[in-house]
């Protein structure tokens, strides 16, 4: 086929324009985070800061206890990820390797759970946490995030485990590695992309979770970043520059992580119905 340079030029132009549209709000976040407070009230707003206040990124840590909130986000997301993985791995492995009564029912339960976001159950979750005396605890957030990300992890790991031929594992088993040894020496290393995707995705969803944290936590030192940052804007003061500096600190690392797992995501999110 003949190369059509005009077509490529057009595609490139459209492509880069689309990229700009998707990045524009975050670019605006960046520019706002660098404005001194007095420039924020200019009307109409300026495109660029007159004075580039890089210090905002230093001052924000002193202005608000964002380190505390960040630690909460890290602990919740980190522990939830571990809990999810510990629950998902054996389930995914067993259901990929064996046919047994109740397998279909289990996978259906997983699929249905995936479709129910915490939002649709938030009233029930809140009432349960009140009953368990778990309101305003990190444990409540960890449990909720672990459970609602479990389906994705089960699906993606299930896919990987199913794709590894049983014979490969049996060979290691016969060589005396034992069932668990075979799992750790053969199956898991091959499934690394699946495990990494599960870990990163769970961590990011827990990191970004908002509605349950908003509902369940009340003490400022037990609130994750998502719940804490709106408090930069109150009736009395509006620190948009700090709000967006904190936002970018929260967003940039997870975007970078996300880029690495992008190509593995769709299979797990659509339960493999689009291959």
């Amino acid at each position: 086929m003949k190369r059509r340079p005009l077509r490529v030029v057009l595609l490139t132009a459209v492509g880069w324009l689309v990229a700009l549209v998707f990045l524009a709000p975050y670019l605006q976040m960046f520019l706002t985070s660098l404005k001194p407070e007095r420039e924020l009230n200019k009307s109409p707003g300026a495109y660029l800061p007159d004075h580039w206040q890089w210090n905002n990124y230093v001052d924000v840590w002193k202005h608000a206890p964002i380190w505390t909130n960040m630690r909460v986000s890290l602990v919740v997301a980190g522990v939830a990820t571990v809990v999810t993985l510990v629950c998902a791995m054996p389930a995914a492995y067993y259901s990929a390797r064996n046919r047994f009564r109740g397998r279909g029912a289990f996978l259906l339960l997983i699929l249905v759970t995936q479709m129910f976001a915490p939002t649709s159950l938030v009233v029930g979750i809140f009432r349960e946490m009140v009953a368990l005396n778990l309101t305003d605890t990190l444990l409540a957030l960890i449990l909720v995030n672990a459970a609602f990300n479990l389906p994705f992890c089960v699906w993606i790991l299930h896919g990987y485990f199913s794709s590894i031929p049983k014979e490969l594992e049996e060979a290691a088993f016969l060589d005396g590695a034992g069932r668990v040894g075979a799992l750790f020496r053969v199956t898991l290393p091959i499934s690394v992309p699946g495990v990494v995707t599960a870990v990163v995705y769970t961590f990011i969803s827990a990191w970004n979770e908002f509605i349950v944290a908003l509902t369940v936590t009340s003490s400022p030192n037990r609130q994750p970043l998502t719940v804490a940052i709106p408090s930069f804007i109150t009736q009395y003061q509006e620190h948009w520059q700090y709000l967006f500096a904190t936002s970018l600190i929260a967003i940039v690392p997870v975007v970078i992580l996300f880029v690495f797992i992008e190509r593995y995501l769709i299979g797990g999110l659509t339960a493999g119905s689009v291959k």
Partner: protein
Amino acid sequence: MQHVAVKRGAGHPPAPRPSLLGRIGRALVPLLWLGPSIVLIAVVVLWPVIEMVRTSLLKFTSSGTSLGFHGTGDFTDLFAESDLVPVLLRTLVWVVGIVIVTMVLSLALGQLLNARFPGRRAVRWAIIVPWAASVLMTALIWRWMLDNYSGLINRVLLDLHVIDKPVNWLAHPHQAMVWMMAVAVFVSLPFTSFVILAGLQTIPADVYEAARVDGAGPLRTYFGITLPLLRPAVLIASIINVINVFNSFPIIWAMTGGGPAHATDTTTTYMYKLAFNDQHIGESGAMAVVNFLLVLVMVLVYLRAARWREEVR
């Protein structure tokens, strides 16, 4: 190893009938592996469902103390709210509008991401950003960009002479809804476009070759071949998008708070405000049950579309 080889060579002796205890034991083995997952789902997903239904049947004081069984009283109260019908209609417009616009744009974006041009990887990365970033934070930057005095959007529109004085976009319910729907489309697009892209990548090249040999133009090829073959991807992406958009909370919460009063609420924010702002806990439970049933219907549609039984073989 030797032992196993000998045994294999000799063939399997007929297995003795397992004892009852052995059979029970065998049936319990799966529970050992699946147990942790089942417990987690039971405690965090099933329990709240029961708790939610119970809440919708109880009477509460405004401080949240239960006054006992209330029958269908919470539902009667909810259906008597004058805000309910507008909220339901708004939710319908919200979901249908966002999903249609999202799907049309995703079909175009998927095509773009599948085409070859320099920098395609970087463009894919850029489109991922709203997917990875917190939706709340994305909604907050949009709120700031739509600010009456200092917002970028008013500035750009003033410079382009589209408007002659700043507009307070989020103060008027209709304008606010349109902008919030645009933000919802913005955060929905990455996922749906990548599902479409995944679908496009499954279409074999020789199908297009055949169409070219038959002399089909680009439009005919797209509507005759690409779109029909994309059907499963479009279906799955739209159902998941419907569920996500229906459950969407942070966008409205951050941009208008559902206000003024309930003028920009959907059923999700309405349910939340009933419980946590207005202290009508029983009514909120009733709203939650209604929402839950609506999502359940969507999930059933998804299960049909995903043909999950074939998937798990």
